[in-house]
Every structure is written in structure tokens, then in C-alpha cells.
């Protein structure tokens, strides 16, 4: 299964997209949104709320998201392509946070560290909508620029916007104000131990020293630029598909 899934995904991406691009580009954006959701799911280990004040989190997102986002959205030529892709991702996760807990459930496996009587959703979506909108606005202005410069602009804009938006939002998510049905910060799985950072709404400092933190942030910025560059190459390939 594990070997099949990425190849299957890739297979459909290669064979499926060329058909889909001929039909309304909506579908490619939908697929893009799904892919982002899936990829972010795979890199789940680095995306928990307690990690949102660590550089590792920003590095992961900056490396993983731009390549997919740009590859999928650029070829459509739509004005708000990135935003639409991220809107799909955001919508999926919001549906998860808002709808899942409405259904009753009980733990099927022991040990049970605290009682639950309903489904526990995944976390509130990352605020990728902000960097997505910024990318859309920029892409009109810098269309036609040298590709490497475009990558630098897209990458830096993505990283900075995401950092400036997600960091304070993370602070809010850790606060009591977010522990409700809208933001879902109060939901805990039954395997979450009450002594864990997660249950205590605490941030985990993954970087031991300030230097380590800033080096990783620099890696995040670089990663975003490289990822954007690869995304632009990918977008180019997608545009050239004829059959």
C-alpha cells in the first residue's frame, strides 16, 4: 500500500492532469488542494500545534507547500489560482474540525488516557490562505520576470507572509479563546496523555539555541525559494502538456 500510493498519486498526476487541464481548470485546483492536504498530512509529525513556535515547523511547510502550490496553480492562468487551491485545503480541514465532533464515538483501543464520547477532529487548518493570496497578487506583477527571480520573490513572500500570520495565530490557538467548536483547540484524542505538551497547551522548543533557531529559519527561507523554483519548473511542464 505504502509503495503503491505515491506512485499511484504520481501516475494519476502524470496521466490524469493532462486530461483534466483540458476541462475546466477547477478540477486541477481541486486536485491541488487535495494534494496539499495529503502532503501536509504526511508531514504531520512536524505540524502539531506545540511546534508552531519552532523553526522546524516553518521549514517543513516552506519546503513542502510552494512546489505543489505553484505547480498546480500557475498553469491554470486564473487570477486567484493559489488562493483557490488553499481554499480547498482550508475548506476540507474546516469541515473536519466542525463536522466530525458532531458524531458520537468511543475509544476502541486501550489505554484510554481520558474519556471521549465523540469523534476527535484534526487540527484547525494552517493559515496558508494568506501567503496564497500574496502569491496570487505578486504573480501578475512579476509575470515575465526571470524565473530565478520569480522563485526568489515567491519563496520569500510565501515564507515571510506565513511566518507573520501563523506565529501570532498559533499563540491564539494555544489560548483558552481557541478551545471551542470553531477553532477546535480543546479537542484531545483519547491517546493524548494529560501530561503532554499538547494537552497542557504548551509550545515545544525544538531548537535548543537561538543560533539553531535562526539557522533553521534561514533554511526555511532558502527552502521556500528552492521549492518555488521547482514549482515554476513543474508549472512549465504542466503547461506544455498537450495530450
Amino acid at each position, binding site marked *: 500500500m505504502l509503495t503503491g500510493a505515491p506512485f499511484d498519486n504520481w501516475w494519476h498526476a502524470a496521466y490524469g492532469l493532462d486530461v483534466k487541464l483540458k476541462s475546466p481548470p477547477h478540477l486541477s485546483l481541486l486536485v491541488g488542494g487535495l494534494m496539499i492536504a495529503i502532503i501536509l498530512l504526511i508531514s504531520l509529525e512536524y505540524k502539531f500545534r506545540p511546534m508552531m513556535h519552532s523553526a522546524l515547523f516553518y521549514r517543513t511547510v516552506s519546503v513542502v507547500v510552494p512546489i505543489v502550490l505553484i505547480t498546480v496553480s500557475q498553469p491554470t492562468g486564473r487570477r486567484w489560482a493559489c488562493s483557490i487551491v488553499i481554499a480547498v485545503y482550508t475548506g476540507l480541514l474546516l469541515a473536519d474540525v466542525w463536522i466530525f465532533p458532531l458524531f458520537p464515538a468511543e475509544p476502541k483501543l486501550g*489505554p484510554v488516557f481520558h*474519556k471521549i464520547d465523540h469523534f476527535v477532529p484534526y487540527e484547525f487548518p494552517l493559515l496558508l490562505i494568506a501567503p496564497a493570496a500574496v502569491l496570487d497578487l505578486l504573480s501578475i506583477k512579476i509575470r515575465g520576470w526571470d524565473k530565478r527571480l520569480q522563485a526568489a520573490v515567491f519563496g520569500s513572500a510565501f515564507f515571510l507572509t506565513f511566518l507573520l500570520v501563523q506565529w501570532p495565530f498559533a499563540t491564539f490557538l494555544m489560548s483558552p479563546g481557541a478551545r471551542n467548536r470553531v477553532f477546535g483547540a480543546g479537542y484531545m484524542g483519547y491517546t493524548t496523555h494529560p501530561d503532554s505538551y499538547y494537552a497542557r497547551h504548551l509550545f515545544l522548543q525544538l531548537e535548543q539555541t537561538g543560533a539553531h533557531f535562526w539557522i533553521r529559519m534561514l533554511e526555511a527561507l532558502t527552502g521556500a525559494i528552492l521549492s518555488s523554483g521547482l514549482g515554476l519548473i513543474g508549472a512549465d511542464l504542466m503547461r506544455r502538456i498537450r495530450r
Partner: protein
Amino acid sequence: MRKLTQVVLLLILARPAAAHVGSPDIFFEGNAGPYRLFVTVRTPRVIPGVAGIEIRSQSAIREIRVAPLLLTGLGSENSPAPQVAERSADDPQFFACSVWLMQFGVFQLRIHAYGAQGEGQLVVPVPATVQGTLRMQNTLAFALTALMIFLSIGAVSVVGAFFRDGMLEPGADRRPVDLRRGRLAMLAAAISVVGILYLGNRWWNWDAEVATRRIYRAPRLAANLESGEYMLLRATDPEWLQLVGRHPLIPDHGYLMHLFLVRFPEMDRFWHLHPRQIKPGVFLQGLPSMPSGLYKIFADVVHEDGFPETLLAEITLPGMQGSPLTGDDSEASARPVSRVSQISGVSELPDGGRVLWERDAAPLKPNVPGHFRFRVEGRDGKPVQDLEPYMGMAGHAEFLSWDGTVFAHVHPAGSVSMAALQIAEASLMPDMANLQPSPHRNHSLSAAALPPEVSFPYGFPRPGQYRIFVQMKRAGRIQTAVFDAQVK
């Protein structure tokens, strides 16, 4: 894919080895309210893993439900949804189910029985450790390799199609430049695929090595003779010493350690002693008079979280004079195993009495749970009336394989640690411990006269030859009967 393979394979392959020593399955007999249940737990090979549970009831039962909780700590308070055990089609009093043990530690299986006589609950402590890893079956490996080759070739050909044909207008023919581009892309893809497979293989091996390091191995002690009459046992494994620091040992039916010494290879001399812990991980035992020889040492201990262990050691002793046995210490002599010509169901006791092993004529098979019943007769041939509790129980039995690789210390309640069982039962009725009769009423007896039969639930873990030491107390004297068994 590997995890799925492991789950599938562990359910169909034979049982491997660990706790006690070489005897990983747990056998237990107790009362769930009005119902007497014989419970066998086939412990999982890996963690998280599936424990197979078999329950035989002595009376008619409508339903049995099983839930796993941790024995101590936070996970011991809330129960997940219980599994309903399936009734066997051939035997209406036999039930089976599977339960996931999701982490390391000690679990308690809460078994709830429902029937015409009402409902009742019993609890069985189950330690969860990694017992081994699995090699992949050849057929599966072959199938996966074939699929991997197919996918690799497919991936490369997809890349080729993309770069060769994907950018041509519909209906256009391929030009040499397209073919070249396609081939170049396929070469790059092939190199990437090989790279991915190589890195994936390294990742697999790394994970496998991590898993192998987690396999539970019985800790070893260093055993030395001091001053000609004391044996000093020292824990040498620093990780085990750390474990003892975090989870100190607790007494199990009266003693921190039950020490068994058996002379090998003849297994003709046997001692059951109780050393003193002079500091964490260091035990001192004054030795009785012992003939020279190599002795294998099995030391049973229990940690405060209910985790039982059998520590292993060996010592070569010269013939020595020592102090006579006192208190609950006991010994036995038996025919050397090399001179056992036929398996007998009778063991003569030094005072003229005998112990008879009551069993049917059916041959002994491995992995089959059953009762090992022994009747004690006096010199006059009549069943005795003077059996007393030995360390709180009607008897203690030790099952040892002739090659020394299997050791199990079993009580009438089963092969679980009595200390762990007490913790489990206390958690079952936390507020009522003061009101109810003692939770260990099933297995810790007051000094009233006992019936002349003792019964132990157990199952041999694998084929081979075994020696069984059955220990009871008669009129203040501890007596040990010795039996041999052939398991095919």
C-alpha cells in the same frame, strides 16, 4: 506494507519466547462472579500487537467481553469499548477474541462474563514486551519484489511517456528530439528510482535495527560465592538498574526475590530460596550444603508497576557445607534426567508418602492449556489431611525444560505474578477494598487444612522434555515432588 505483514504473520506463525523464560503465554484460572473461567492469553510478539485470548468456562455463559487497560497509572482508570468474545462452534463453553496491546508496560485484561447466574468480572495482568521480530515469508517477499519491479518499470515508462509524448500536439508524430528527450527523462527517472529504493532500503534496515534493540531479553545477574558460604547476586545491566530505580521491586507472596537453583545438566538437585536485597540490584543468600556442580539460577522478581521478570545467572559451586534450610526455603532431589528411562506419574516423597499426577492417557501437546492435577497420599496410601498453605498458596509448581531454556513458576491461580494480580484486583474495586472480603480470597489462603489435591493451569510452550517440581507444605514441612514429561 511491513507493518501489515507483521500483523498478518504474527497471527499465523508459532509462538516465540520471553517472560518467565521461554514461556510467554499466560495461563490463569479464577472466578468471574459465579463463573469459573480458565483464561489463556497468547501474548503478542510485537508491540503494538494483538493478544489472542481463549476462555473456557466451567458453566454455561451467555456472553464474555474483554477490555485491555493499563495495570497502573492513568491508563488504568478508563476502559475502551470491550471486545465481545466469539463462542466456538464446537464447544459452547469456549470463547476466543483478540485484543490490541498498544504500548509497552503491564496491562490488565478485564474479562466480564454474563449469563443466567448473573454477571461477574475477573482481571488478568498481562505484561506487554517485544518478544522478537519476524522474517518475511518467501512467497510474500517474492510477490512484493515482483510488484516493486513492475512499479519501477511503470514509473520510468510514465516519465518517458510524459516527456516524449506529453508535450506534442494531438495527432503529431514523434520527432527524434522528442525521443531523445524521452530517453533522457527515463534515464533520470531510472536513476531516481534506484536511488529511492536504495534509500528506502536503508530506512527499512534502520527501523528493523531499532525494533531488534527493543526485544525483551531476560536480564542477567552475576553470581559469586563469597566467604565460602554466601552467594552474592549482582545486576550488571545498567539499563536494568535504571529500571529498578524507576520501578523498584515489590514483594511477591512475601519475598522480593524467589530464587531457584537447579543443577545442570542432570537437574537432580533443586533449591527454592529467598535472598535478601542488600541494596538495589544486589542480593545476598546464605547457601545450604550443596554438592559441587554447575547450577542454573532463575530469580523471579516483580516491579511495582506489576511487571514480572525472571533474571538469569549461573554459578559453578564446589561441594560445600552450608546452613540448614529455614522458613520458606526448600529443596528437592531427583533422579538425574539422563537416567530417566520411563515417564512415571508417581513421585515418592522422602517421608514415605507419594504425589500422583492425575492425568488422562492422551499425549502431552505443546501450546495446549490444561490443568496439572496432583494428589498427595500419605505413607498409608490414603489422601493426606495435613496440607497447609505454602507462602499463602496451596502449592507452587516449577516447569523446566531439560535443556534449561524454559522456566515457568506457576501457582494454582496460574502463571501470572501474584503481586501483579493483587494490583489488578485492587484496581477493580478501588472503593470497596475495605468492605469486600480480601480480593485475593481465590489464591491466598489462611492456615486452614487444604484438600489433598493441587491443580495448576499451564501449557507447555514447545515440544521437548520437561521436569516439573511440585511444592507443597505438609504439617509444617515443605515437600517437593518431581515429575518428568514428554511433550510432542
